[in-house]
Each structure stands twice: as structure tokens, then as C-alpha cells.
């Protein structure tokens, strides 16, 4: 009985002295260091507060972080592979075939399709990174940006296409005209063939 009481008192005193020490260790604030630094794991033994005051201090993340998706639209050949592989269908691509070669991507692939829309809904994205794997020109990548809080849900749909409505409309009409022309030529050729027989 008495032993128990004494034990309780000594352990309580031990705990109280420990917390008292921590109470006055608080004037030192945590130094934010990258996980690469040598004494990163020694920080847990350091004296002082352990809080990272987030918007003011940020823990460095690797440059090759896999967070937000980003598309370099000039390098995109609009092959639609990313949209097809996406498990949650968060990528919406609306394509218009070009009537001629538009240009080359930075790795030399020919671009023959316009991307009228290239939307990624980050609210749906599950960060699996499959789209970055299948992309033949490596134009869709994951970046090290992780803080993307927005005021409205709409703003989470990232629009990467740089085509204006008018331009898309114009390109569609050019395509229709070309296809009509082709169709006409085809019909003419068939007629000629029939006539020839």
C-alpha cells in the first residue's frame, strides 16, 4: 500500500519534470530540412517545437515528385492513349484531325491531330500515374506541386488545350471540306470505274 503510494508519487514527479523540461524547450523552432540532409532523422531528438508552420515553412519535396498532372500541349500528338488507360476517366480529349502536318514535337514525332479540348479533372484523379507511362511523347507528366486548393470545384478541372473556339470551328470546317472533297473524288473514281466497265 505505502509502496504503491510512493511509487505513484515518484513516477508522477518523473513525468512532471519531463513535461516541465519540454515546456521551456519551446523557444527553439524546427528547422525545415530536406529528407536528403544527413541529420534529417536526428531532428526527432532535437529540442524545441516540432511544428512545421505550413504555408510559411514548407518541407522540401523531391523535384521528381508525383503529385499534380501537367501537360506540355505543344508536345502532344493527341493519340488519346492517356484518356483510354485512365482508370477513373478523368481525362477528356476532343480531337480534330488536321488536313496536313501541323508540326513536329520536341522529340521529332509528327503532329497530325488538333486537341480541341484536353481537360484533366484533378478531383477525380487517383494519382496512379498510368497516363504518364503510356504517353509516347512524354508530354503528360507529374510535377512536384502538391498544394492545389481551390475555392470552386470547377477550378480543379485543368484545361490544357490552347485552341480557341473559333480556331477549332475553323479547323473542323476545313476538315469537313477536305473530307467532302475526298468523298467526291472517291465517288467520281467509282463512277469512272463503273463507266469504264
Amino acid at each position, binding site marked *: 500500500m505505502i509502496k504503491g*503510494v510512493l511509487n505513484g508519487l515518484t513516477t*508522477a514527479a518523473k513525468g*512532471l519534470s*519531463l513535461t516541465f523540461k*519540454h*515546456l521551456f524547450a519551446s523557444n527553439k*523552432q524546427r528547422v525545415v530540412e530536406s529528407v536528403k540532409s544527413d541529420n534529417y532523422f536526428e531532428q526527432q531528438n532535437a529540442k524545441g517545437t*516540432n*511544428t512545421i*508552420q505550413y504555408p510559411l515553412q514548407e518541407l522540401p519535396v523531391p523535384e521528381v515528385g508525383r503529385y499534380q498532372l501537367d501537360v506540355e500541349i505543344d508536345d502532344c500528338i493527341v493519340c488519346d492513349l492517356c484518356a483510354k488507360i485512365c482508370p477513373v476517366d478523368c481525362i477528356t480529349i476532343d480531337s480534330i484531325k488536321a488536313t496536313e502536318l501541323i508540326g513536329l514535337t520536341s522529340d521529332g514525332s509528327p503532329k497530325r491531330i488538333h486537341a480541341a479540348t484536353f481537360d484533366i479533372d484533378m478531383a477525380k484523379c487517383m494519382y496512379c500515374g498510368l497516363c504518364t507511362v503510356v504517353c509516347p511523347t512524354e508530354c503528360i507528366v507529374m510535377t512536384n506541386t502538391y498544394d492545389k486548393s481551390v475555392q470552386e470545384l470547377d477550378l480543379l478541372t485543368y484545361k490544357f488545350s490552347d485552341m480557341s473556339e473559333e480556331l477549332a470551328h475553323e479547323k473542323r470546317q476545313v476538315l469537313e471540306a477536305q473530307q467532302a472533297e475526298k468523298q467526291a473524288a472517291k465517288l467520281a473514281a467509282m463512277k469512272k470505274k463503273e463507266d469504264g466497265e
Partner: protein
Amino acid sequence: MSLIITYIIVALGLFAFAGAFTLFGVYAERKVAAFIQDRLGPTEVGKFGSLQTIADMLKLIQKEFITPAAADKVLFIMAPCIIFVAVYLGFAAMPWGPGLVPVSLNIGLFYVFAIISIETLGILMAGWGSNNKYSLLGAMRSVSQIISYEIPAGFAIIAVVMIAQTLDLQQIAVQQGILSTVTTKFLGYWDVSHVGGILSWNIFRAPHLIIAFAIYFIASLAEANRAPFDIPEAESELVAGFHTEYTGMGFAFVFLAEYAMMFLVSMVAVMLFLGAWNTPFPNFASFKLANYTTGLAWGIIWVTLKTLLLVFAQMWIRWTLPRFRIDQLMNLCWKVLTPLAFLCMLISGVWRLLLM
């Protein structure tokens, strides 16, 4: 007529003090908790987060007061008022300085103890009125705990009263300093009536009063429902205990009462054991430190400082020790504190008869 106005002013002053202390107490509690746990606590609202509690209070005032459909409406609404008023009335008899006491009562200590007990009733009303199993469990735990712990606290107090021979808090206070009209002896043999300071405080008047102080302090934690005796509102088991169903101003009053209670029980401890409004500096030789630092303004400063020190100790203990289980709680009360308090009372009687 002017007397009534004075009473109203005093009452409003005490209410304002309770409110101001709650604002400060919540901020201090959050900061102490944060530093002990190597965190920073509130930092955003005002410099070092000092306006955080004012922002919280403004939020609480704006909130709707919701009465659950199944609640006993009268009890539910009355409970926070009774809880707060019981604690608030306790302040009436507490002296703040030489000659400065809201109500001079010759049974002051008895009155304070009786009026604090009414808080139990308010808690039980809140628990029953909420018609919620957690609230009711919390309230029942609270009542059993407070009633149990009043016994060691009461005997520890009687040990002091037997030495002081008065229930008037102002007289108990006067005896512990240089203004004393009776002879005060340090540990029973050295006359320190004109030396004053820390030497003439009640805890040094007799050695067993140090133990009585420890008993009273532990019991006062339980009476204020503070950790490690916070089983009535044990967050991890009972949501929030007896005040689970309260919102807005009802919750604010319960909160106000909790912090006012912390201050009140600490203040009672200061009155009875730690020299009340007397200075801790003794007179020695030609340095009449005690004479310099005794007076009305000094009295208010000393009593506030000492009480805040005890309040800090309460917070410190809360963020260090884990919560007691109910059987451990009752064990400590009935098997350790109560017999010790009895012993202190017995020694007090013998001390009074043989040594004073």
C-alpha cells in the same frame, strides 16, 4: 441605495473577472499544452495568437442554442446557469487584499465550500436533462467523484481551521503575515509575527499542514473535474460527458464555470495554505521587505500571482498525467487521501492543545 449600487458594481466586477480569467485561462491552457507537447499552439489570431480566445468566444455567442427534442427542457436550460452561479457565488467571500473582501462573512470558508457543492447539482441536472447516455454517465461519475473528494478536502481544511481557530477567510489571511494580531510561529517554535513573508504562511505553521496542502490540492483537482480526475468528461470514452448536448451560450457557461472553478479552488488553497494576500518576502534585519510589499495593491498582485501559479500547476498536471480509472480514483480517495487527511486533523488538534 448607494449600498445596492456598490453591490451591483462588485457583482459585475467579479463576473467580468470570471469572464476575463476564462479568456486568459483557455489561451494559457492551449499554450501550456502545446509547449509541453512540443507544438506551437494558437499563433494566427493576433500576436502569438493572443486574440484566439476572443475569436472563439465571438463564435460561441453567434451559435444557436439547440435544445434536443427529447431533453427535459427546464433542467437542460437551467443547468448551465446553476453550474456557473454556484462557482460565481463562491467568489463573494474571497478576500483580495487587506480590508478588501466583497462580503465579509464569519463563516466564509464554510460558505464557499457549501456553495461549491451546488455545482454538483447543476452537473446532475445537465446530465439528466440532456437525456443522453453519455451525459448521464458523465454526470453520475462527476457527482460520485465530487462528493467523495469533498471528504479529504474538507478534513484538510479542518486541519487548517483548527490551527487558525476561525472560519473567516479574511482573518485566516491576516494571520499569515505581518498584520497578524495573534502570534504566528514558524513550525511551532519560532515567533515570526513581525518577520512575515513566506515563513508565516500556514503551510509552515505546522509541518503536517504541508501534507494537508497536498491533499487539498489533489482533491481540488477532482472537484474542478480536472485531469487526471476528468472522468466526468473523459473525451475518449464519453464524447464530452455531461455537456455533450450543449451548444452556443449554454456551452460557454459550462466552460466559464470550469475555468472559474479552477481559479476558485486555487484561490481557496492560496487563502488557507499559501499566505493569502501576504507577501512571500520576509523582513530581515533592516530590510523590511515584508513591510514594503504589504498593502492593498500588493495584496491583489500577490493573491493573483499565487493563484495563477497554482492554476499553472493544474494545467501542468493535466498535460502530464493520464486519466484515472474510476476504481483507482475511489481507491486514492478513500484509502489514501481520507485516512491521511484524518491524521492531519488529529495532529492539528494535538498541535493546538500542546504547542500553541
